[in-house]
């Protein structure tokens, strides 16, 4: 099992590059993040280190273990009746919007 003294040693050990530059670009695209070219190698290095680190999880035998769905045992998400409870506060909410017109949020044209 994982050694508590090791994490600090782990940091100085050379991290294997698990992820390619292309993979980082793809993850950034999926996450809708524009990265600067200089950021790519930084994330390539650190994400590789993180996935190497979380690879520790493979050591645990979870063959007959159910994934945990809620932090409190026996509880699940509460449901409420499907009725409208909110009042109309659109004007107040739209004060934080970067661009609105006639009560609508404006974005660049999506249909030609």
């Amino acid at each position, binding site marked *: 099992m994982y050694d508590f003294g090791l994490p600090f040693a782990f940091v100085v050990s050379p991290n294997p590059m698990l992820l390619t530059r292309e993979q980082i670009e793809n993850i950034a695209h999926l*996450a809708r*993040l524009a990265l600067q070219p200089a950021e790519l190698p930084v994330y390539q290095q650190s994400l590789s280190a993180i996935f190497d680190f*979380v690879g520790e999880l493979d050591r645990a035998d979870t063959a007959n273990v159910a994934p945990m769905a809620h932090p409190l045992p026996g509880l699940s998400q509460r449901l409420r009746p499907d009725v409208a409870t909110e009042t109309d506060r659109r004007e107040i909410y739209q004060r934080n919007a970067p661009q609105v017109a006639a009560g609508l949020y404006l974005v660049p044209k999506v249909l030609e």
Partner: protein
Amino acid sequence: MHTKTLAQLSKGLRAREFSSVELVRGFLDRIDAHQPVLNAMITVLREPALAAAQAADRELAAGRGGPLAGLPIVHKDLFCTEGVLTTCGSHMLDNFVSPYDATVVAKLKSAGAITLAKSNMDEFAMGSSNETSYFGPVRNPWNTDLVPGGSSGGSAAAVAARLIPAATATDTGGSIRQPAALCGVTGVKPTYGRVSRYGMIAFASSLDQGGVIAATAEDAALILREMSGFDANDSTSVDMPVPDYLAGLDAPLAGLKIGLLKEFFDKGLDAESEKRIREALAIYERLGATLREVSLPNLPLSVPAYYVVAPAECSSNLARFDGVRFGHRAKDPRDLMDLYKRSRGEGFGAEVKRRIMTGTYVLSAGYYDAYYLKAQKVRQLISADFKRAFSEVDVLMGPTTPTPAFAIGAKTSDPITMYLNDIYTIGANLAGLPAMSIPCGFAQGLPVGLQIVGPHFSEGKLLNAAHVFQRETDWHTKVPEEFK
């Protein structure tokens, strides 16, 4: 006045020894005077706080007012405050004026507390040193070259420097307890579901929990009693009555069974910190508690499990920041995709982007089972370990952090070293357990925190154990020289 506890200040207000206006002005002046060095706040609310204090004085003069009437507090800047800037420590939200109050804010307001400021924090609560804040790092009042811990670093530093008697905070992986430990103050992370998350800007929804940082366990109990309770607006809020945490504070500790986590006293724990922890445990023994070693064999996997689950939830929660409805928007977008990508790329800092990408990857097709599902299974194992331990002992005790506060800049280049700072605190979040940190002495001249973890909804027992310890010791009364 600033070294008095909330409980003492409340008595003084009721007896009209001083007014709320005097009290609030005194703390506002301290906040302003130390802001250039500590950087503990993002927004200071001088005028509204003084107006609220005037109103509180009228209530108090008439013999009315709630349990916190006229008392000053600050809110971590991820609690939404109506009509007030709420930044979450991020460029993304540096222009966001919240249209409503978080439930915690509303509850404390209706109990009579007065909000003086919004405290600085790691961006979106992602960090253990307060260095990821868009508004600059907070400094540790015990040594301003050092970090205060994070993510609730502003709240912890402010209480440690007695800029405020108490502050709200949140804890996803240690963000209340770790800064409380590094700043030498008392911090409580309640049971998951005890305090409403409504209006708390979400990081990892199955782990986030609001709580409090104060100088003493008694003050923490005072605030926690008012901020806890069921809220229909939070679907994970638990519908259970809130006990009077103050009533049980003095219960004797004779017969209390304390478990010492074997895994917490392993390599990696600073030797001098360990001495302080062992001395604190000896005090508990003297008070009639019994100590026994317990083992949670899966606990060492809590950090890797956390760094799958938390980023996964973060990547989903932070998808709402799209540059359309609120928050930062990039200039002159070419098309909608460019708007999304550049608004997010510019608005989020480096650590937030790292976690969003980590989460995106572990949830992506082909990796979900290997990472996310696996981590949720390990989380189940860790929870079961705690459950087993609590069938043998009443509470678990050990260090809150492996070392005292470290230097600003020392761990920023390596995220994993930073993540490992929360090695002792993350387990309680994964299992939804209440936990707290109290000061128990100094190592290398810096505060050391004793961590106490209990079964679900045992906040009262934890506060009792902490309060009785604080009756026997004076570590919680220590204030750094420059802030006396």
